[in-house]
């Protein structure tokens, strides 16, 4: 075991998978010689060479469309889109092809592709560098969306994503890349897709969240604990298809639910969680479900960034409102 940051854990997973499976190739802008603008792919080019670690021209549709072809051929491509805000030049390739070729070929071809992208706000970046677009991918039939919240999960989930026979959108919270280190198992390490993590056990209220909001919710949970409110924090890890059993169990236990994500509220993942819980747990709900999210706005630049990025204060306020209902 070594203490790694999330970005180091991602890099470790890529090294481990590329060494273990020669079908795995990495492609994207600046992933090779440079090692990636966030250093996620550092060392891969020297170790595995330009045929498996590919600096592409500046064309996202080209990257994803080509990766789809590689996957059809039998490779296990890991495509990096440099920032989440640039994934949309490739959106047609995801919407029309990555998510459909298995169906279109009636099971004959699959698209075992991972599309990695740095995700979310919190690093004082330029426009398009602070978006949270997970809902746009989660709504696509045939898609899987994963967002890790810890270094160990990042390694284990990325490993599972690379081995998954279908396309996985793997979004990496920039804010967590270097926020903290933790023990990360060395060598092969898997965390199953579709299974949530109980980040904190509690009995009074459930916080369902993922990615960069997990530490925010943990902080809020600690705060309300000092007031005698015992909050449970469920880290989804796989945003879609999410772990409905874990959510249901927790809400049936606590009777109260606060959903927290940084993405815009309307039609976000939180809406589906709220709708699903409403359908399944209506009778165990003691208060209306609350959503603490980014607002329905363009993620602001540095000066206002923190006012859109949900704070533990906003989560605490929501917990109070839920408890006092």
């Amino acid at each position, binding site marked *: 075991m070594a203490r790694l940051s999330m970005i180091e854990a991602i890099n470790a997973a890529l090294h481990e998978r590329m060494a273990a499976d020669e079908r795995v190739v990495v492609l994207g802008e600046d992933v090779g010689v440079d090692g990636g603008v966030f250093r996620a792919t550092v060392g891969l080019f020297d170790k595995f060479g330009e045929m498996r670690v590919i600096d592409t*021209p500046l*064309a996202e549709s*080209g990257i994803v*469309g*080509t990766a789809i*072809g590689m996957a059809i*051929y*039998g490779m296990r491509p890991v495509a990096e889109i440099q920032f989440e805000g640039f994934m949309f030049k490739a959106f*047609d390739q995801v919407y029309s092809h990555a998510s459909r070729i298995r169906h279109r070929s009636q099971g004959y071809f699959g698209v075992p592709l991972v599309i990695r992208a740095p995700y979310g706000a919190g690093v004082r970046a330029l426009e398009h560098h602070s978006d949270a677009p997970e809902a746009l991918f989660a709504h696509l039939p045939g898609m899987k969306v994963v967002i890790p919240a810890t270094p160990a999960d990042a390694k284990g989930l990325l490993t599972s994503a690379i081995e998954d026979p279908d396309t996985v959108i793997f979004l990496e919270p920039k804010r967590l890349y270097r926020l903290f280190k933790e023990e990360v198992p060395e060598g092969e390490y898997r965390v199953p897709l579709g299974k949530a993590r109980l980040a904190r056990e509690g009995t009074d209220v459930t916080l369902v969240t993922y990615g960069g909001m997990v530490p925010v919710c943990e902080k809020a949970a600690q705060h309300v604990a000092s007031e005698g409110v015992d909050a449970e924090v469920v880290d989804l890890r796989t945003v879609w298809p999410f772990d409905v059993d874990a959510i249901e169990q927790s809400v049936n236990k606590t009777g109260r639910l606060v959903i927290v994500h940084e993405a815009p509220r309307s039609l976000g993942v939180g809406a589906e969680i709220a709708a699903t819980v409403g359908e399944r747990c209506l009778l165990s709900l003691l208060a209306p479900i609350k959503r603490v999210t980014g607002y329905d706005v363009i993620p602001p630049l540095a000066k206002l960034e923190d006012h859109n990025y949900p704070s533990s204060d906003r989560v605490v306020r929501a917990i109070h409102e839920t408890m006092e209902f």
Partner: protein
Amino acid sequence: MSNKELIQVMDPEGRVDEAAVRGISEAEMMKMYRLMVFTRLWNTKALSLQRQGRMGTIASVRGQEAANIGMGLALGANDWFCPSFRETGTLFARGVPPENMLLYWGGDERGARPLEGSRNLPVCITVGSHVLHAAGIAFGAKISGERVAVLSSSGDGSTSQGDFHEGLNFAAVFKLPLVVAIQNNHWAISVPIWKQTATETLAEKALAHGVAGARVDGNDVLAVYLTVKRLLEEARSDYKPALVELVTYRMDDHTTADDASRYRTEEMVAPWRAKDPIDRMRAYLTKEHGWDEQKDADLVSECTAEVEQAVRSYEAVTPPEPADLFDHMYAEEPWNLREQREEMLRSLGGSGR
């Protein structure tokens, strides 16, 4: 030679440059002709089934049989083929069962499943996108060290799509074993080629990306076959990507949902009737290879019988089960689909499967 020059070895009267075709055996020529004849008969039948409501909206390949078949036979068995939606003949040449093509265009996904071992992608409806898939397959082959070539085929309209250019650029930068064929049939539904691009030819678009370019008479099956074969060989052996324009003409409406009389006149189409790819090949075979009317009549009735047989098999296929629409979404079905499948089965009173 320049990208703009038109490569032709057989003129509309069926006069052939014998030196150029020396490499093609008579058997191969017969195969080309037979496939063109079969494709036209299948196509005619499919259109009439559509009029009778026994078939869905379908894109006719009439007039493009030479381009279709020339490409199909130029491909090696291990090569990959990435079609758009107007390559019916190419797919027949690649071994796709005619009843499967009927099933697919008849609105049944199961018709699109490739046969075991097939290296044909399913029909791609979104214009231009699959040029990138072809580039990726070529990249995969190159990385794996397998010496095969990939052929992408799309229409003149696809040259306006960003994906077409991104694909050619990737092919050029990474020296991929990729040949991008454009069936220039002069129309993108109602948009004529002169409104699609300001360039004189489509082949010259190769210049923007530093790939080889060639322009071929797409109604000359021998020229299409020879040129595409050469380009595929260069792609396979020298990692030399290419763009090839097959100059042909869409003789029918865009699809059975279209009415071309709204945007083009008979005067525009007429000159192309004289360039028919099948008449041309028949004239040549008659002059040089002892073909005659009796043989032709026999071939036609033979192919017609095969088409009728395909129609019977197509119409004998048991319809899909409602719950089949949940199949093939993922390798492993997640909870949401499992529950929705059960919901459907309940609502059908436990029927379906």
